């Protein structure tokens, strides 16, 4: 058997050789070029095709307005300051509804994942609700709560809660079984195991659920605003879209659709993508960075 000093040097040598080499990213501009140029290119192509189709005058003007007409409608919305009211009404509702969804869905997801009876009882229902278009809740909500904010929040919750809860459930289901066992041998009680092991281990799945939950919140909100409108509800993006539709005003309709898309994509890119990337990278799951 080699003596201790030789052993130590062999060990130190292994430590220098064995660890996986970590890939370093290229310069920042390259990441920017890879991430932003393709979508910008796609947008340019889209607008060019649109312009060409409009110039060919295949469809009448009230069906397909010029890109510039839609752009000037957006510019009006900005210059009159109406944009602030419209965006604030919708985005604040969506964010508030989403946060309420998180508060409700998180304990619900934990219960479904960890308590067998609860899973058997409402697990299938939860998955079913996820595939039910939440716009189906609008008529019921209006009858129950009237044309009030409560109806809209109800529809948003019915959209977001199943997604978030299901995301958490599948996140927990995918935890390697050895981790909770280790947690037990390290002395974690039920509660501290949930806090220190279960939730962080389920975080990637939970985040995926949150992302989908946000998308569903936003969708459901637009559906609700589009169908249920009254002066009490204020002018949100959905109501603005509906206004355009009632006046046969295609530029307004397209401007509204563009804004709805922009908010959805913007929140995803500014909030969820960076968080998800950071979480996955910290765990060495770099597949998502490509």
């Amino acid at each position, binding site marked *: 058997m080699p003596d201790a000093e030789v052993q130590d040097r*062999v060990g*130190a040598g292994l430590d220098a050789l064995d*660890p996986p080499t970590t890939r370093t990213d290229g310069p920042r501009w390259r990441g920017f070029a890879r991430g932003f140029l393709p979508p910008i290119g796609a947008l340019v192509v889209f607008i060019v095709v649109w312009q060409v189709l409009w110039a060919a005058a295949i469809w009448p003007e009230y069906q397909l307005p010029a890109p510039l007409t839609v752009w000037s409608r957006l510019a009006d919305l900005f210059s009159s300051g109406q944009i602030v009211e419209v965006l604030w009404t919708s985005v604040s509702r969506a964010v508030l509804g989403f946060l309420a969804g998180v508060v409700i869905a998180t304990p619900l997801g934990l219960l479904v994942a960890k308590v067998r009876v609860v899973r058997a009882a409402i697990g299938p229902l939860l998955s079913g609700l996820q595939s039910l278009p939440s716009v189906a809740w609008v008529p019921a909500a209006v009858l129950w709560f009237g044309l009030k904010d409560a109806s809209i929040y109800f529809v948003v919750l019915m959209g977001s809660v199943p997604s978030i809860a299901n995301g958490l459930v599948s996140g927990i289901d995918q935890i390697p079984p050895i981790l909770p066992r280790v947690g037990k*041998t390290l*002395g974690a009680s039920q509660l501290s195991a949930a806090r220190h092991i279960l939730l962080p281990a389920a975080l990637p799945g939970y985040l995926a659920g949150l992302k989908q939950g946000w998308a569903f919140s936003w969708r459901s909100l637009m559906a609700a605003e589009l169908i249920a409108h009254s002066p009490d509800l204020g002018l949100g993006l959905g109501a603005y879209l509906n206004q355009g539709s009632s006046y046969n005003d295609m530029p307004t309709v397209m401007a509204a659709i563009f804004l709805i898309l922009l908010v959805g994509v913007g929140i995803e890119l500014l909030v969820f993508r960076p968080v998800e990337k950071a*979480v996955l990278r910290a765990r060495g799951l770099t597949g998502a960075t490509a």
Partner: protein
Amino acid sequence: MTATLSSSEQVQSATAVELTGVGKIFGRGQQAVAALDGVDLSVAPGEFVCLLGASGCGKSTLLNLVAGLDAPTVGRITLNTSRPAVMFQESALMPWLTAGRNIELPLRLAGFGRADRQAKVAELLDLVRLGGSANKRPHELSGGMRQRVALARSLAATQRVKGSDEPALLLMDEPFAALDAITRDVLQGELLRVYERTATAVLFVTHDVREAVRLGQRVVLLSSRPGRVVQEWSTQDNDGEDVTAEITARLREVISTHAGR
């Protein structure tokens, strides 16, 4: 017993862990499988015992029973130690925590204060020669380094806030089986060094006779299906090569008895 006798003296005289007539049956009726049958085993405080056996001898089951992850069907397990720490074949580090934070986790769960935790983590990292890797994530470490972090974490799990007098017990379930030969050799040396400095008792499961003889003060051979204690050897006053040959022969014999069925 008089009141003047301190509790540490009581523990010194006792065993760290004692198994009497322990049996474990999985399943029921026709499908029932006896994994362990009538196992008697005791480990003294500070003793290093290796459990040796072929596949299906219930070594891991036995370890799980001692760790409290599973309950025996019959028999009794008496622990005179703090909650036993366990190390598995996989390092099972929390992938979202750095090496340092992984070691800190059991200290947090045990309720140590912040300053205390930091001091102990630094000490344990030095003990497993990973002083410079505290901020690395598990995926940035090699397999051997991960197992050393897991070892440091198990040692951290034996610590108690009020510094109780109970001796520590470390349960190891083939911790080096997934490593390459050179790394395994280095880690065996490392484990012995750590063991000599910490005075914990170790119950080490392996299927490798050489490993068992090199590490253990005592080697206990289990039979398979159901697992029973066949024989045990002391490696203290025996020549290593001789006892390795003897144990290997006996292990082959035990495995051969399964051929005809």
